[in-house]
Structure formats: structure tokens, C-alpha cells
């Protein structure tokens, strides 16, 4: 079923501390309005409306130098395995602005293998991102925990 080979448990744990390739993201004002519509939020009035706070997630995920497929691949998973976002912790320290280029860094902070009744064997992996403004001030922190089903490990 899966499109990638899962690591064994020792290899999985060894991924903790892995730094992701850094990247950058600039919020386009038109895309900001599109996102407001997509999440059913009114766009604030004015010539430079403040982007929705969910950009703390979006800038982190799209700004890091690895796309979603690449991130899953780091853990030997793929979209075909049915990965799920299990937990998300957002610190929103300063408002985002459109047109500003944000720097994004990220690292793996947790990777554990579990077994449950519904999913069988699965991995919980947490990635923590930091988003900095051009003046180096921290704008947002995003911690995502993914649930990665491991059908292959269950059959091993």
C-alpha cells in the first residue's frame, strides 16, 4: 500500500534532531484573500489587511525547504500510507504581514513507534518550525505531530 520504505524503530528514533532545510515564504496579498475565503473568514478592511492567524501553520509548512511529500519521505512515508495530522500547537507571537519575506527553520523533535487497536502499528513524529521576520524577531512557532500508519511494520 505504502509508497516508501518505513525505517525500523532505531532508525526512526535516530531522526530526532534532524534539521530540515531552511526556506522562505512571502504571503501574497491576493493569496491571503483566497485563504480567507477558503477558511470562511472575513478579510479585514483596509489597503493591507492582516493575514489570517492560520498563516502561522501555512508559512511554516510551505516555507520550509521541503515539500509535504519530501517531509513524509524523510520518515519513510508517503501520501499513499494515509498520514494524518494528529496534533498542532501554534504560538502566534507577532502578526503576519503580506509582502514580507519570512525565514523558516524546522527540526524533528519527536519520533516514536506505537501500537493501537484501530491503527495497528503507527509512528508519531513531531516537527517544530520557527518563523522569523526580516528583523530576526520570532513571529510564530508551529509544532505538528503526524500519525504515520505502518502496515509494513505490523506485518514484519
Amino acid at each position: 500500500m505504502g509508497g516508501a520504505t518505513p525505517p525500523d524503530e532505531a532508525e526512526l528514533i535516530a531522526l530526532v534532531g534532524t534539521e530540515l532545510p531552511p526556506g522562505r515564504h512571502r504571503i501574497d496579498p491576493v493569496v491571503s484573500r483566497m485563504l480567507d475565503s477558503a477558511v470562511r473568514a472575513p478579510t479585514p478592511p483596509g489597503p493591507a489587511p492582516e493575514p489570517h492567524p492560520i498563516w502561522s501553520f501555512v508559512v511554516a509548512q510551505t516555507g520550509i525547504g521541503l515539500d509535504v511529500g519530501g517531509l513524509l519521505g524523510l520518515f519513510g512515508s508517503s501520501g499513499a500510507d494515509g498520514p494524518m495530522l494528529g496534533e498542532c500547537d501554534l504560538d502566534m507571537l507577532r502578526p503576519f504581514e503580506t509582502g514580507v519575506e519570512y525565514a523558516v527553520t524546522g527540526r524533528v523533535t519527536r519520533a516514536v513507534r506505537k501500537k493501537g487497536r484501530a491503527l495497528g502499528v503507527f509512528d508519531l513524529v513531531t516537527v517544530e518550525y520557527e518563523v522569523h521576520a526580516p528583523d530576526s524577531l520570532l513571529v510564530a512557532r508551529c509544532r505538528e505531530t503526524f500519525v504515520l500508519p505502518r502496515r509494513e511494520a505490523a506485518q514484519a
Partner: protein
Amino acid sequence: MTRKGTHLPVWTAEVDATRMHVMALILGDPNVIHVDADAVRQLGLGEAPVNQGPVNIAYLLNMLREAFPGGRIMNLSTRLLANVFAGDRVTAGGVVTDVTGDGVVTCEVWLDRPGGRALHGTATVRTVISGDD
């Protein structure tokens, strides 16, 4: 709105598949379960496209922004408990669990869909904007 035990005004919406397409582009999310009902059926997940997790989180942020106009959401921690599907009517709600003297409010928050709870978490909102904020 800033007393412990106060329930926040609920926020509701019907989830729309077309908006998932826009978010799939914005997020760069290649997962077909957000755009293809057949793929959802084949995976045994349900009968309709699955809403993106961050969109469900955004619904909670919408509810908090409407509950605390002029406030600033400082933190939102959520557990995603169940999928939300196109066509679902979702309801975001919350209750104040703590208030500090400087206007920082902590809330328990949730997002419900037909059949149960989809998200559950906590949020912290600064309801008084200080001069250096």
C-alpha cells in the same frame, strides 16, 4: 466574555469541497483525499472529500476572533480527533477556563461535526492590547 466559565458564541459553517481545492493549492498538499471522493471511498475513510486539518484549526481561530474582537490569539493547541467531510455542518465553540489580571484569557475549545468531536484543544488570547504590542 472574560469570566471563568463563560461559553463563547458558537461559530458554524457548512464545509465546501471547492474551498478544499483552493487550500490544497495554498498548502501544496498533494493528498488526494482532499479533492477526490473516489479516493476517500477506496481508502475506506468515507464518502466525501476530507477537509484539511489546518482548515479545521482555522475555524477555531475564526470563532476566537469573533469572540474576542480586538484581541490577539497567542496560542492554540489542538488534537485532531476525527475527519471532517465536505457537506458536514461544523460548530466551533469554547469556554473560558482562566483569566489573568492583565487580560490574558485561556479557553477550552472544540470543533464538532455530525457524529462527534473533530477537534479539541486550548487557546490563549490577550484581550487587552498593551502599548508596546
